[in-house]
C-alpha cells in the first residue's frame, strides 16, 4: 500500500520536473514557430515582402491586417548587415528577432528620428572588432548587437486606412538589407 502511495507521489513530483523541462525545451523543438514558418519563404540577407495579412494568405497567426510587412532573414557569419528602411507616411517600425522568435530589439520611425531608418546589425565579436578611432561611430550609425548569428528582421508599415496600403507597401519595397563588406582593413589616409 505504502509503496503505491510512493509511486503516485513520486510520479507527481517527477511530473513537475517533466513539465519544467518540456516548457524550457518547447521553443527549441517547436516545428511550427514563426521562424520555421517564414524562413523557407525568405531570401537570405535580402528583403522579402510578406504576404498580405488576410484570411488564407497570412503566413503566421495574429498578424495585424492594418500593416504591410517585409522581412529579412539574416546570417551574420559573413559580416555585419546594413539595413535601410525608408519611413512611410504614418508609422514604420523595425523589429529584430532571434532564430527562436525572441524580440530583442525594436525601433519605430519617431525614435529613429529620420526619414530613413538606418541600422547596422552585428554580433558582439564584430562590434568589438570595430576600429575604435572611427570618427563616424555612434553619432552617425545606430549599431544593434544580435545575440545569435542568425535571425529575422521584420519591417512593418502602417496603412491607417485600407486605401493607403499601396503607399505602405511601396515604402517597404524600397528597404534594403545587405551584408557589408568586411570593414576591418586599416583606413587609408
Amino acid at each position, binding site marked *: 500500500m505504502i*509503496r*503505491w502511495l*510512493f*509511486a*503516485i507521489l*513520486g*510520479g*507527481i*513530483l*517527477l*511530473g*513537475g*520536473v*517533466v*513539465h519544467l*523541462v*518540456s*516548457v*524550457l525545451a*518547447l*521553443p527549441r523543438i*517547436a516545428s*511550427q*514557430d*514563426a521562424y*520555421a*514558418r517564414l524562413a523557407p519563404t525568405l531570401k537570405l540577407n535580402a528583403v522579402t515582402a510578406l504576404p498580405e*495579412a488576410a*484570411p*488564407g494568405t*497570412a503566413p*503566421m*497567426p*495574429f*498578424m*495585424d*491586417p*492594418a500593416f504591410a510587412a517585409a522581412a529579412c532573414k539574416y546570417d551574420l557569419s559573413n559580416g555585419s548587415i546594413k539595413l535601410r528602411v525608408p519611413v512611410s507616411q*504614418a*508609422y514604420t*517600425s523595425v*523589429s529584430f528577432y532571434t532564430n*527562436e*522568435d*525572441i*524580440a*530583442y*530589439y*525594436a*525601433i*519605430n520611425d*519617431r*525614435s529613429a528620428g529620420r526619414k530613413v531608418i538606418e541600422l547596422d546589425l552585428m554580433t558582439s565579436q564584430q562590434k568589438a572588432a570595430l576600429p575604435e578611432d572611427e570618427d563616424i561611430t555612434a553619432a552617425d550609425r545606430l549599431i544593434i548587437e544580435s545575440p545569435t548569428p542568425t535571425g*529575422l528582421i*521584420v519591417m*512593418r508599415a*502602417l*496603412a*491607417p*486606412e485600407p486605401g493607403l496600403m499601396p503607399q505602405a507597401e511601396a515604402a517597404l519595397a524600397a528597404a534594403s538589407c545587405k551584408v557589408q563588406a568586411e570593414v576591418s582593413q586599416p583606413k587609408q589616409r
Partner: protein
Amino acid sequence: MRLIFVLILAMAIATVVGLGLTWNTATRGVEIGTLTIGPWTARPRIGTSDIDPYARATVARSGELPIGAGDGITFRATTDDAGKKLDGRCDVVVSGVTPPARFWTLTIYDTKGKLIANTLQRYGFTSQEVVRASDGSFSVRIAPRARSGNWLPTGGISRYLLLLRLYDTPVGVATRSKKDAPLPSISTAGCS
C-alpha cells in the same frame, strides 16, 4: 516484479502530469508577468529579451511573432467585462477611450489567430479610421449581421478574440493599473 509495476505507474503519472501541464500552459498561457485591466490582458515583457519561459512556449506553439517592446504592446480579450466568453452570434460593443499611443488597431481573430473572412474585407479598425463621438470616445459593434457605425463582422463563429494593439506608446513594463492605461469596456448587448 511488483517494483517494476510501481515504477511504471510512477513514470506514467510523471509523463501525464508533466506533459499535460505543459500543453495546458502553452495553450492557455499562465498569469506570470501579465498585466490585466478589466477583460484585457497583456504581457509587457513578451517583446523583450526578458520574456519568461511560459510566454516563450506560448509563442513557439502558436507560431506568432510578438511585437517588440520598442514598437508597441498587445492587449487580448476573450471575455466581456462581466466575464462572459465573447460569442460571435451576439452583439458585442467595445466602447470608451484608449491609452495614449500614436496609433492603435482593434482586430478580431478566431481562436487560432486567423482573420475571419468577410466580403467587406473588414478585420479591424485603426485609430484613424474609426468613427468617433464628439468627445473623442468611440464605439465598435461586433456582430454577425451588418450594423450602423463601426461594425466588425464575426461571421457567426462561436468564439473569438479581440486584440487591441497600441503602437508607440508609454504603456509597457511600468504600467500597473487602469489609471495608467484606460482601456475600452466590452459588453454583450444581446444575442440573436
